[in-house]
């Protein structure tokens, strides 16, 4: 039994707005302090996680809106590449 996946900030990658980017709210993040512009985060949900870059944070009347740029590839592909190249132990 592995450790449960905890995404940095949940979102629906298909829930876009006028920017064409998916978005969510900062207060949904597990650790909001990690969600800064340019940060690489895991988003989506635990069952179908994806990598994203935080594109922007915008103050809205209803909270801080976070736009995300979904990155290509499956997170496990990144992990595999890092293992293969010994990037984590370098």
């Amino acid at each position, binding site marked *: 039994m592995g450790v449960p996946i905890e995404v940095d900030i949940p979102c*629906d990658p*298909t829930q876009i*707005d*006028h920017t064409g980017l998916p978005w969510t709210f900062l207060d949904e993040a597990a650790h909001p302090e990690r969600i800064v512009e340019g940060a690489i985060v895991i988003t989506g*949900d635990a069952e*179908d996680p994806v990598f994203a870059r935080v594109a922007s944070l915008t103050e809205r009347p209803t909270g801080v809106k976070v736009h995300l740029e979904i990155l*290509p590839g499956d997170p496990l592909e990144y992990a595999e590449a890092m293992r293969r190249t010994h990037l984590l132990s370098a």
Partner: protein
Amino acid sequence: MTGEQIETYLRSEEPPDDALVVVRGGPIAPEKIVEHAQRQAREYTYRNAPMYSVSVSLTVGDWDLSALLVGPLSSRSTFAVSTAGVVRAAGFELLPTYEAPHYDLLLATGEYREAEVLLSLFGSPEPNPYKRRGR
């Protein structure tokens, strides 16, 4: 009411009854519909009321199912399909929002029971053969 009016972002488009409506996975589950609909209602209004909706993609214009799966749904592992006619006959409204093929599928309450009814209109989840595997 503090949300932004979605009317600003509507296209003038009426999808035909046989247009495919595609929802997305990971889990295609009522809990996720509720979560996403409530997030949308926190930010947007429609007809001056909170807008409970989920994003869906439709086969409109030049968009066929493969194009949807390799495009807007490329990060999703699974998908499920219904049609515009079936969804509308059950009382759900489809709003053409932002750029095609994006639509918002409106829910009245965004509550669990309504999400269950909505998902009963869709076929079984299928794996997305085009899930993005890097470029």
